């Protein structure tokens, strides 16, 4: 247990280093992710932002050559510790991916996949989870009459909101989003952004985005990554209006990226 543990901190990343084989992808990352806040992670392609967010639920370990150093405290417990089961971590930390990835099953089966694998059997509870998750993901009204239709019949934006509903159904504590709107049109993007704003009350959200405007619109904190380093991390307004680092300013004003 950490002595510096406080109630507001969900994730405390300390001296995190990560290598793909011999290539170092993350260099000495130190940052905190707070409860009920949206933390945006920005930076140019290949800067390590996706790698970082996938480290938070240890999804990165599916790549065989990955090696990590340092610690990530999740509510005070190091996620790399033996006592932390990766299945438990990922149940508490949900993830939404870049491309909508519903299962080739019905909307009903998609949302209830998580609760079912975690042992919820009672039909009334399942129905309740289904409705609340879809309502929280602002999808209920659009799909309530066709819950048993295949999820592949939905539009891209609806599929992504279904994936968010599916993540919410496990009742996580944190939701990680890896460029969730990059495959969507502007209208669907606006809907997801609205949704993220409303989810903030109940969840802590960390979102990777390549759009600075998006980070500015939806996030409380912003982390700017460049070539595997965390260049600057702080309140979004400060980062966007008055960045401390020249590189952050250059990136935000569009001088490179």
């Amino acid at each position, binding site marked *: 247990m950490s002595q510096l543990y406080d109630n507001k901190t969900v994730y405390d990343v300390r001296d995190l280093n990560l290598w793909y084989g011999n290539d170092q992808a993350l260099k000495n990352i130190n940052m905190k992710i707070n409860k009920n806040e949206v933390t945006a992670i920005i930076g140019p392609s290949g800067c390590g932002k996706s790698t970082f967010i996938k480290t938070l639920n240890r999804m990165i370990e*599916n790549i065989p050559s990955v090696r990590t150093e340092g610690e990530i405290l999740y509510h005070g417990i190091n996620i790399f510790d033996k006592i932390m089961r990766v299945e438990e971590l*990922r149940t508490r930390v949900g993830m939404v*991916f870049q491309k909508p*990835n519903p*299962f080739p099953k019905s909307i009903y089966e998609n949302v209830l*996949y998580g609760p079912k694998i975690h042992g919820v059997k009672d039909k009334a509870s399942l129905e309740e989870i289904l409705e609340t998750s879809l309502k929280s993901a602002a999808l209920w009204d659009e799909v309530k009459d066709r819950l048993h239709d295949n999820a592949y019949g939905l539009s891209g934006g609806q599929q992504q909101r279904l994936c968010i509903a*599916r*993540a919410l159904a*496990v009742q996580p504590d944190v939701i990680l989003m890896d460029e969730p709107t990059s495959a969507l049109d502007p209208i669907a993007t606006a809907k997801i952004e609205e949704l993220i704003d409303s989810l903030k009350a109940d969840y802590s959200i960390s979102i990777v985005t390549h759009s600075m405007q998006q980070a500015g619109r939806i996030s409380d904190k912003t982390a700017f990554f460049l070539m595997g380093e965390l260049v600057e991390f702080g309140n979004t307004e400060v980062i966007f209006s008055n960045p401390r680092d020249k590189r952050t300013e250059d990136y935000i004003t569009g001088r490179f990226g």
Partner: protein
Amino acid sequence: MILEQTLNKNEMKDLERNSKVQIDKKRIERRILINKIAKVIFSLSLVFALIVLAILLYRIGSQSIGWLNGGFLTRNLSIFPEKAGIKGAIIGSVMLMMIVIPVTLLVGVSTAIYLEEYASKSKIQDFIRINISNLASVPSVIFGLLGLAFFGRLLNLGSSILAGGLTLSLLVLPIVVVSSQEAIKAVPNFLREASYGMGASKWTTIRKVVLPVAIPGILTGAILSISRAIGETAPLVVLGIPALIMKVPTSIMDDFTALPIQIYYWTLDTVLTPEYANLAAATIIVLLVTLFLMNAIAIIIRNKSQKSY
């Protein structure tokens, strides 16, 4: 040619002056001719295959007329052609398949799951993968020898249905493993990630996400390889299946005969009794219809799965 008819001389000159590639009319004509010849050659090879098939079908069709009837299917074996039937061979083949299908599916799919989902991608794994593919092309008679030595002699199963079924299972296992591996590999990774992302274990993910998507592909490969097992003769001959078995098998420990074996022995003995050729032809028709139906099922499953995913 065409252009010369529509353009005048000056326009034609203009057109050709700008081009670095000088148009050689003879060359173009020659290429068109070569294309025509190629087309004829390729279509002839198709015609050749169709002719061979037609001759075969005509021969066995005409030979089996009058012999292939309900009685032939339900009678026991006999040395007298008029009294002979293939009831025993049909039951033998069915019982063989009752061993081959569960054994190959269980062992084959499990192996494929291990290799694709659990095994790390090391050099040893690559070596194993390559050798499974190699095994798929080993001649069937060699599997027969293995079956004779291991199942027949060492485990003392003799030439029973169990020994034959296990030998045929070994023969088609590599094909089932490779085709199941392909089916599992075709399941997109983002589906696995979605499942892992919700805290599912590897096995839960395989059972609930990977297999449901892969099963049509696995079944297609399995049916095709099982239909190969039905038609195999050599491994069973090596096992020492007797030429004439009057008794219909009742258990998997009984001696037996199967459709391809019956075709083989009848053809072998045509010199002694010419009517055996008719019996062989009738049996071939039965075997062909069985294979045709199995392949049709495989195609139907494959098409269905393409629609749903």
